[in-house]
């Protein structure tokens, strides 16, 4: 049996237990999906603080809507959709909030944004001296390059490469064909590789 099939079987029993009100079972699901969900939200939002908030909200929504999940073995793709939708909502909401904040700042004569900055230091294995600095620099460039991708390419790449959703699910989520998803993922990677050539 493949790893995916094993995971689906495990998800099935965990979801059934969680539906009956077993919080520990849901805690297992949180443990299982929080890393992937946070990584994806972080890539979509470019801000770790927003990403953790979005993921927390996604877990709460998923918990409250567990009884609407018909195929209990498909918790992963279902939950990742919630993460994706919430992240996009956060992204849109943040754009509005930033515009309002900018206007307020201007009105108050304060040119500097009052937004708190969060240091993001990704985890890299086998660190060498200076590697953390180089990694942080690369991370900054990766996020900027991702932000500059067309929306559909960024989503396809994040959903497929980071959230690890099957291409079929990504296609359904984005309203595209599987071939189009493959094309968007390839184009996104190619653009990133060109843009980040100096840091790779």
């Amino acid at each position, binding site marked *: 049996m493949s790893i995916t099939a094993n995971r689906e079987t495990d998800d099935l029993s965990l979801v059934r237990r969680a539906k009956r009100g077993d919080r520990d079972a849901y805690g297992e699901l949180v443990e299982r999906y929080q890393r992937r969900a946070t990584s994806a939200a972080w890539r979509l939002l470019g801000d770790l603080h927003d990403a953790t908030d979005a993921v*927390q909200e996604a877990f709460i929504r998923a918990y409250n809507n567990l009884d609407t999940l018909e195929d209990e073995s498909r918790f992963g793709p279902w939950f990742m959709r919630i993460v994706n939708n919430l992240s996009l909502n956060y992204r849109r909401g943040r754009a509005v909030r930033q515009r309002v904040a900018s206007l307020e700042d201007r009105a108050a004569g304060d040119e500097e944004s009052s937004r708190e900055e969060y240091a993001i230091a990704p985890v890299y294995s086998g660190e060498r001296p200076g590697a953390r600095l180089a990694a942080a620099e690369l991370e900054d460039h990766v996020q900027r390059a991702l932000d500059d991708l067309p929306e559909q390419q960024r989503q396809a790449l994040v959903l497929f490469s980071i959230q690890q959703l099957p291409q079929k699910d990504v296609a359904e989520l984005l309203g595209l064909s599987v071939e189009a998803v493959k094309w968007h993922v*390839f184009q996104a*990677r190619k653009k990133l590789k060109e843009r980040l*050539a100096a840091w790779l």
Partner: protein
Amino acid sequence: MTNADRESLDRLLSEWLDEPDNAELARRVESAVGNDADRIALRDQWRRLHAALCAEPAVDWVRQRERIMAHLPAAPRRAAEIEARLDELLGEDSEPLAVDWAKMKTRVLDRLDSRRAGPVVVRFPAWRRRWVGLGLAAAAALAIWMAPWGLLLHGTRSGAEPSLPASVATLRIHAAAMTDEKSDAGSSMVQIRVAALPGADVVHPQDEPAAAEDWLMIDPPAVARVSAGEEYGMF
């Protein structure tokens, strides 16, 4: 490595990243890369890009899990419970909504009236548009033809030496008029602008250069297509 080779290898490497556990793809990648230094460098770039993309953010996962669990309700709120709560809120026992219905009706009607009072579009039958277009075209041609003479007459009256004034008419034709035979009414347009050339002699010193005149033809007749080759015509 040619551009085509590179593109082909890029595609293969991207496919391989899609399915890193696919042994067949891994074998094809190794075979395509071989011992070529450029190809090895390209493969390593793709690997590093993938690693950078999939790098996890620095989060205290234990704390995050605790935070999430602390915010969960005691039990999942069932859709049925939410429905029941909604029914309760909207039920007969609930407080009646305090709405000033007369005021609301007035507001709705005002809104409808303001929508009705939007821009007025007057549509003429095709034959009338054609005749109006022809009339405007004739008037424009006459104006262009008369423009030098008008200035000449003005000069004669004022006693100055009659000189041939330099004036220019530019003809601007909306592209839709040329390409789309079945375009909607109003989508074709010819604009004729008559003005003195910059720096041209003014016939009478007290006279300011005449203001440019615009002539507009909407849905011009077929005769306008004579000038269709250029967006701007000068004559």
